[in-house]
Structures are given as structure tokens and as C-alpha cells.
């Protein structure tokens, strides 16, 4: 035992190589990331009784109940749909399984507010079928549907990956012990993928909790929308800060619930097998299963694409569709997203390096702090930075610099996950070998570690890029006056039912996201999907 521990120590990364400047950089990054939450607390605390009384209002209780209900409905629906799709694709004899395997994940390329736009532009007021089919989808039902369609792919991807990893011998053993297929599913398969289902459900819940785009378009008064409106309409902004803290508390509760569920499931380590499993015959269930897949993919992917195409054509014939007005928001989106992606990776590097090189209690705490931004909905980050900038950095308020800073704070965890994995994959002995061959620490890092970690770093930057493209609340609150992105364009046009104006921008967003998502799905990169999910708009 002592021998083993001693060995572990000998193999650890070399501390002699962790430089003070690296530590300083990492601490600065972690401090920047925790700034919004800290300042939100400070601001709310300084608000006095009047501000806190917002919590006691009956409306607040109603908003809270509505928020919890929406999160619950979306989480349950997304978990059921995603789990069922994963089982059908990985374990049953569903026709054209490989097609469904990819198609089921593709709605990931459709931002949730574009899914909302698609629903509104079809059956909402002023929609294509608006008068013929008044399905009054505005409000709870519409928001829940749009959010479910946007979040089930996370559950699907994680569960499908878990099913692929699960040892098929376990299910075969259960068959051999006399269990029929449904019993095997219930008693063996489901417990095996429960951690993955739980992780997917967590993503769906966090996404819904932090979503602003869908609920504002569907005019559903949940916390994010109410916070935004309080901030926009009231002179005293402190109640918004208090409600923001309430939202953070809800988020933390969701995280704790999931951590508890995961703690119980932790013992089920994934085995290594990758043998093909003989599919379960669906029999008479084949047609309904096929219809189910078609319905989900139809609503999540084909409906948005079809509706966008319809409105572009209709707008084109009316002379208001594709015109040069889209160029400025498109360039704005691409520009800030590219810069945010690069900046997030640069900011993530020192933290990731420190954690990988000298894994100690305080470096891990630093890392956790940096991941903490995940628990902050975009509205909250934006609000806190607005307060902070308005009071201390007047010159920076409503500048691109502050907007980019907010993006980096918001999406750092995604870049950090990528950077950490990439750096951990580089054998520390390689850099030591370079040192022994006469290179200084910087030169060794640049010549060896950086090129080897580059693909992973680039992947992290890509995810931040994509998240920034889709980002809505931070952009709305912090953008310079007159600065438009594709996301704000879609949002503001849809808010006033100008679907023909919203459609080109929305289609462009989907077109940018699609290849990235497709690549991710084809590579079966569940972890990356998880990282991306946390950047929900």
C-alpha cells in the first residue's frame, strides 16, 4: 500500500515546472469568472428591505412555481424522448437505424429560440397556419414543446453513448437467466444507463432554467423573463438582482440533486466492451416506433427548416426577404463569436495547465470556481456585469470589450473542459524531455505541448464560437447601441411577429451550427455535447 502511494508520488507532474506567472494568470481568470456572482450578491445585499420584499410578493411565488413546473415538464419529457430514441437506435431493429442515429441528434443545430420561432411562425398569431389552425401555443405549452425539442438531443447523445459502452454480455446473461426483452430493459439496461440519463436530465434542467429566448418569445413569465423585464422597466434595478440570486439558488439546487443521484450511481463504472449487440425485435411495435422517430425529428428539425424556407420565399416575393440588412448582423455574429472562442481558450489555458500540472487542493478549487460560471444563467451574468460596469467601469459600459468579457466569463467552462482534456492527454514526460534537451519552459511548451494539444484547444474554441453565435440574453443587455447579431435579429423580429425578417437570420444560424453539430455527432462525442449544452442561450 505504501509502495503504491510512493509510486503515485513519483509519477506526478513535476512541480518544479509550475511557474509563478502561471499561477497569477490562473487566479486572475478565476477571479474574473467569479466576479458576476460576487457582485450580484454585493448588489442584492446592499438593496435593503425594499429590494428583498420582492421575494415576498405573491407574483414572485407564482413566477417561481411556473419556473419549476416548466423545468420539471421539460426535463421529464426530454429524458423520456431522448432515452427512448437512444434505446431504439442502439438496441432495437428499427429500420434505417444509422440514419436515425444521426437525424435524432441534429435538432442540436437549431437554437431553442429558432424552434420557438418555427412553432410561432406556423401556428402562432400571424403564423402561416395561424388563422386556419389556431393552436394557441403561446405560453406554457409552446415554451415546453420548444425547449423539449431543443434539449432531448443531449439526453439522447449521452444515453446512446452509455448504451454503446455497456457490456452486452450483461443483457445476454439476463436473457440466459430467463428474462424476456422488456424485463431485461427494465432490470438491466435501464440501471446501466441511469447515470447517463441523469446527466442528460441535468443538462435539460439547467438549459431550461437559464433559457431566455424561448420563454420571452412565448411570453411565459418565468424567472429569466421577469428578471429581464424588471431590469428594463424599473428605475430601481436591485429587485432584478434579488430575483437573479433566486435563479442562482434554483440552479444550485438542481446541481445538488443531480450530484446526489450521481453519487449513488458512481459505483457502476463503464466496462470496456464494444461488441455489436443483436438487436431486439420490435415486432408489431415497429410502425409506432418509426412514427415516433419521424415525429420527433420532424418537429425538431424539418419543421424549423420548412418554416424558415417558407418565410424566406414568402418574404422574397414580397421584397423583404433576403436582403443586405442581414450582412451586418451576420458579420457581427461571426466576428464576436470568433474572438470570444479564441479569448476563452487563451483564458482557459493557465487554469487548465495549473490543474493538469500540479493537481493540488487549491488548484482544484480554482478550477471548480472557473466551472462555477456554468451555474450562472446568462441573464444573471449579464445583469451583474451591467451593474458592475455602470458603477465602476462607465467607459466600458455598452462596448464590445465588455460584451466579449461577458462571453468569456459565460463560456469559459466549455473552453476549460476542452483545454483540460487536451493538456491532460499530453504526457508530461514529453515536456520534461524537451527541458532536458536544453529548452526553457516557454520554448518547451510552445514546441511540444501546444502543437499536441492544438486539436483539443481548437475544439474547445469551436464550441465557444457556436455558443456565442446562439447567445441571446448577454448580447441583449450588454451590446453596444446599434450592434446586432443574428441572434438578436431573430429575437427582435420574432417578438413583433416579423417572421419574414427573422427567417434569413435564423436559417444562417442553423447553417453555421449544422456542420459543427454533424461532426460532433458522427464522431459520437458525448462529452462535447455536454459542454455545448451548458452554453444554452
Amino acid at each position, binding site marked *: 500500500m505504501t509502495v503504491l502511494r510512493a509510486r503515485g508520488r513519483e509519477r506526478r507532474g513535476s*512541480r518544479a515546472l509550475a511557474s509563478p506567472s502561471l499561477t497569477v494568470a490562473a487566479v486572475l481568470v478565476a477571479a474574473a469568472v467569479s466576479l458576476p456572482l460576487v457582485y450580484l450578491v454585493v448588489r442584492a445585499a446592499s438593496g435593503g428591505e425594499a429590494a428583498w420584499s420582492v421575494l415576498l410578493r405573491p407574483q414572485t411565488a407564482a413566477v417561481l412555481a411556473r419556473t419549476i413546473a416548466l423545468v420539471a415538464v421539460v426535463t421529464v419529457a426530454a429524458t423520456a424522448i431522448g432515452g427512448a430514441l437512444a434505446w431504439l437506435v442502439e438496441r432495437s431493429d428499427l429500420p434505417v437505424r444509422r440514419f436515425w442515429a444521426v437525424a435524432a441528434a441534429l435538432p442540436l443545430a437549431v437554437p431553442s429560440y429558432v424552434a420557438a420561432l418555427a412553432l410561432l411562425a406556423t401556428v402562432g398569431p400571424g403564423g402561416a397556419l395561424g388563422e386556419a389552425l389556431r393552436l394557441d401555443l403561446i405560453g406554457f405549452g409552446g415554451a415546453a414543446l420548444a425547449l423539449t425539442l431543443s434539449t432531448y438531443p443531449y439526453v439522447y447523445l449521452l444515453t446512446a453513448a452509455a448504451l454503446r459502452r455497456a457490456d452486452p454480455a450483461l443483457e445476454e446473461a439476463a436473457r440466459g437467466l430467463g428474462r424476456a426483452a422488456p424485463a431485461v430493459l427494465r432490470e438491466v439496461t435501464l440501471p446501466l444507463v441511469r447515470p447517463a440519463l441523469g446527466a442528460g436530465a441535468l443538462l435539460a434542467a439547467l438549459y431550461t432554467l437559464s433559457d431566455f429566448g424561448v420563454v420571452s418569445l412565448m411570453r411565459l413569465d418565468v424567472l429569466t423573463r421577469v428578471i429581464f423585464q424588471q431590469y428594463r422597466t424599473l428605475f430601481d434595478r436591485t429587485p432584478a438582482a434579488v430575483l437573479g440570486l433566486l435563479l442562482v439558488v434554483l440552479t444550485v439546487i438542481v446541481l445538488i440533486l443531480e450530484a446526489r443521484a450521481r453519487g449513488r450511481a458512481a459505483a457502476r463504472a463503464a466496462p470496456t466492451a464494444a461488441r455489436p449487440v443483436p438487436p431486439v425485435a420490435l415486432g408489431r411495435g415497429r410502425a409506432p416506433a418509426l412514427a415516433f422517430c419521424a415525429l420527433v425529428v420532424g418537429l425538431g428539425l424539418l419543421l424549423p427548416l420548412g418554416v424558415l424556407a417558407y418565410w424566406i420565399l414568402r418574404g422574397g416575393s414580397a421584397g423583404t426577404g433576403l436582403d443586405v440588412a442581414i450582412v451586418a448582423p451576420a458579420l457581427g455574429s461571426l466576428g464576436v463569436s470568433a474572438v470570444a472562442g479564441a479569448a476563452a481558450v487563451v483564458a482557459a489555458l493557465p487554469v487548465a495547465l495549473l490543474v493538469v500540472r500540479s493537481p493540488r487542493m487549491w488548484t482544484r478549487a480554482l478550477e471548480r470556481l472557473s466551472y462555477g460560471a456554468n451555474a450562472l444563467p446568462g441573464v444573471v451574468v449579464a445583469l451583474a456585469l451591467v451593474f458592475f460596469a455602470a458603477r465602476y467601469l462607465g467607459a466600458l459600459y455598452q462596448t464590445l470589450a465588455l460584451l466579449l468579457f461577458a462571453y468569456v466569463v459565460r463560456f469559459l467552462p466549455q473552453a476549460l473542459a476542452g483545454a483540460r482534456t487536451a493538456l491532460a492527454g499530453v504526457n508530461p514526460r514529453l515536456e520534461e524531455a524537451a527541458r532536458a534537451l536544453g529548452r526553457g519552459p516557454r520554448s518547451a511548451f510552445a514546441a511540444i505541448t501546444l502543437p499536441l494539444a492544438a486539436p483539443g484547444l481548437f475544439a474547445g474554441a469551436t464550441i465557444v464560437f457556436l455558443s456565442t453565435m446562439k447567445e441571446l440574453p448577454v448580447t441583449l443587455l450588454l451590446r453596444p447601441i446599434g450592434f446586432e447579431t443574428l441572434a438578436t435579429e431573430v429575437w427582435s423580429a420574432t417578438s413583433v411577429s416579423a417572421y419574414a425578417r427573422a427567417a434569413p437570420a435564423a436559417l444562417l444560424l442553423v447553417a453555421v451550427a449544422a456542420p459543427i453539430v454533424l461532426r460532433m455527432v458522427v464522431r459520437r462525442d458525448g462529452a462535447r455535447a455536454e459542454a455545448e449544452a451548458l452554453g444554452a442561450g
Partner: protein
Amino acid sequence: MAVETRGLVKAFGPVPAVSEVDLTVARGELMAVLGPSGCGKTTLLRLIAGFERPGRGEIRVGGRLVAGDGVFVAPEQRRIGMVFQDYALFPHLSVERNVAFGLPRRERGRGRGGRAARAQTALELVGLQHKAERLPHELSGGERQRAALARALAPGPELVLLDEPFSSLDASLRAALRREVELILRDAEATAVLVTHDQEEALSLGDRLAVMREGRIVQLGPPEEVYARPADRWTAGFLGEVNLLAGMCRRGGAVETWLGVFDSPGAGAGRVHLAVRPEQLDLRVDRAVNAEVVEREFRGHDVLYRLRHEVGGSLLVQLPSLELHEVGARVHVRPAAAAVASVVD
């Protein structure tokens, strides 16, 4: 002196990994450091290389103080070549660029024939000139090891450190590569410190052998001497199978045991324990039976027998496999001619 450590101490937390190590390696010498895993031998190597800071003590490389007394020279300024256990070849660089990596910039350039001359020389030294353009993953295990060696030797270091260089190779390759590596190191006139947990490797490779246990060097000397005269029971047992026999030394140089009298120069009078190697015992089939064969382990070129002696209990005996004794055979065991046993306490 190529390298010299004095009073070297390194602890991770409360647990000392290296304590009070004094080690001197002469120029051109090949020093093997042998010890079980966790004994601190890798930490010692990493201290010399500069990847760890010593808690106390000094390290000198080529006479220059590199660590201790407030001085700490960075690894890149120590002129030490290192061959890592997993070789640590840069996976994105060709063999040639790996080897040229440590050369000064002007010598890294490509000379006549499109190759960096010094890298080429190093590759020739290890016989890999025909694989210069390959990437590390395209090499066999043995070739990777030679590439790592060439990379460490190319800049002409003061000292080469080898960390368990043969542990990731097939057993069948090891013996051949051991000889090859030794020849390459001798050819390059390199000074080398090699760390290993494999007794055979340490005994066959080093000019001198340092045995480490729990952070300390417990014995240091030529391999033959360490093997023949282990400092204590633990070292005796760690270097190979051994029979511990209690005995009494009456007159200088001879120890009387229940198995007979052994020559043991330097033994002081009184009760002692002897470490007797299995090959220092002999078996006969004659009338003077005193033991029975309990177990036989056939190892090809030799055989290891476990005997039960009629008075003394269990004994290990190793013999060439020319003549085999069956399990259950009654035999006569006695000290081999010219057996010199060593006193271990």
C-alpha cells in the same frame, strides 16, 4: 567526477522519498541504481535531472553545483540527457527531428544530403539512420528505445540518465537490447546512471551497482561484490534467491553450520547468519542421504530444487539441468566446492 550528490534529501509531504543519498559517478562510468518500486530511485534520477527540487543536500554535475546551497539550475541548463521509461518521443516529430531537438539552432539545420549532420551521427550510433523520416509510432519498441537514446546522446551531455529503460519491452527483447545499449553508451563514452527494479539488468549492466531501499543507498559496489557479499539479509534476498543459515564462527574465516563448514572471510567470532546462494550448494545421490526433494522448478538452462533437510528444514539448491532429480528423491546436499558465503548479521 561526472555527477556527485551529497546528503541529498527529498520528501513529498511527510514521507521521505530520498534520504541522505551520497552518490558519486566517475566520468565514463555506468552506474546502476537498483531497488524495488517506491524506493525513491526514480526521484533520485529526477532530482539529478532537475525535475524536482531537493529538500536538502547538494548535486554537482561535471564539478558544477546545480542544486543546493541556494542554487537551483533549471533542467535545460544542466547538460543532462534523459531516457524516459516510456521514451517520451515527441509524437508529432520525425525520428530525425526528435534527435535534432536538443541541438543548438544552427546545428539543427539541414547539412549536405538534407540531414542535420549531428543528428545523423547520433542516428548512426544507434543504427537508426534508415528510419530517420519515420514518426515514433511507426517504430518498434526496441527502435523507439534506441531513438530515445540517440536523442539523449546527440547534444553530447555530461551525463545520461536512464529510467527503467527496458521495462516496456518484451522479455525476449530485453537481453539483446541490454547489450546493445551498453555498447552504444560505451561507444559514445557516455557517463550513465540507470535506474531499474530488475536485478538481472542491474547486475549485468553496471560498472557499479547502488542498491536503494526506502530512500537510502544500502550498498554500493561492483555487481559481483554486491551479489557475493550483500550488506544485509534484505539485500541478499532482493538480489536473488538465498538460504539463510545460522552458524558459529570459531576460527577466522570459517563458519560452522548444520549443513557443514563454509569459507567466510572476515567473519568475526560468535553466532552469525550466512547468506548462501542456491548455486553454492551441491546435490549428490550417494549413501550419505540427508535431504528429500520437495519441489522442482525447471527453468531450462538450470533447475531450482526445494529440499527438506533432515535437521535444518527447507533449502533452495540451483543446479545445471544436466542431471535431473525427481520430486521425492532422497539426496545428499552439501556446500559446493569453493563456496564462499557471506555473513549478513
